[in-house]
């Protein structure tokens, strides 16, 4: 049975790689696509740059996606900048922010490819919803892997604790809701 393609944002790549869970995503996606802006965001730091290059060499199902409607991405970023005027001083930073570009590009690429968006950040999730895309984040992936018996509930909790210790951001409320459903203590 064909599985969907997933377009992933940088924060989810970092979190899932830190947990060594990227290979397990083959159970959820036939292809996992890294947009250009997400790669550029990750390439800004030597450690993540080397890691992303290694992942692209190591796993055939992780692939780059480069061609996209750049105007659509720019329009989303302009809209974001205009809304940013509500908080003076932040507008220019928002425009330049590679993370925002990564999220916007993930949504535009997913729209063009009929793919799922894998994103944790609020703005990216709102964009995906507006584009009527299927979107999920790190917590959903942990839950699906647990449903598939590839992770035990206690391992899910250990993973969330590890993310917190590493200073990797994730939605804490959603994480604790998941732990509650799995019968595990919150973190």
């Amino acid at each position: 049975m064909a599985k969907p393609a997933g377009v992933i944002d940088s924060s989810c790549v970092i979190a899932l790689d830190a947990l060594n869970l990227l290979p397990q995503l083959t159970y959820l996606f036939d292809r996992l696509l890294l947009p250009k802006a997400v790669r550029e965001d990750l390439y800004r730091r030597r450690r993540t740059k080397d890691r992303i290059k290694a992942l692209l060499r190591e796993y055939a199902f992780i692939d780059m996606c480069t061609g996209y409607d750049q105007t659509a991405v720019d329009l989303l970023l302009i809209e974001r900048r205009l809304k940013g005027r509500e908080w003076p001083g932040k507008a220019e930073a928002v425009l330049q922010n590679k993370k925002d570009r990564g999220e916007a590009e993930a949504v535009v690429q997913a729209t063009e490819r009929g793919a799922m968006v894998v994103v944790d950040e609020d703005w990216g999730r709102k964009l995906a919803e507006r584009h009527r895309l299927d979107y999920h984040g790190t917590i959903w992936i942990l839950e699906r892997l647990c449903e598939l018996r590839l992770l035990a509930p206690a391992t899910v909790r250990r993973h969330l604790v590890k993310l917190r210790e590493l200073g990797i951001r994730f939605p804490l409320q959603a994480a604790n809701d998941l732990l509650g459903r799995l019968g595990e203590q919150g973190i």
Partner: protein
Amino acid sequence: MALKLYIAYGTAADQVIALRLQALAAVNGLSVYVPPAYTRHPAATALEPQSEAKLIDSDIILGVVTTGISEVCREELNAAQGLKKKAIVIADPASASWLQDYFPGKVVVIDPANPAAAEQQIVQFLKQTEIEQAAMTTLIALGTLALGLMLFAPQE
């Protein structure tokens, strides 16, 4: 000690099957090595030192060939023969016909019309190997899963 498996997959397109098997095997206490995708690049022709070490260390070599075979996969299967490792190759009918010549008695052909026959062959192969019951049960389950993954793999 955990049973060690080495999955020699045919081409980069087969790596997804190998990774799914690896994930499932890990939760069942088996240690599975899947060579990196770049080793299936047409330019790659020789077994890497890391892969060679893993191959030597493995108890069983599982070949997965659905859309052709890369040079390095062929090297891995040849090395398994040379090292007298327990090896089994699961292949689609097109690949199986010529693989039989190279690896006689070790190729399980997947016939979409009769998948049970392939499963029986895997069971027979594993019964001939001297491994403990629990590991054999897991390997049979993995073999069956490999069949399922290959039968239901999306066709390009």
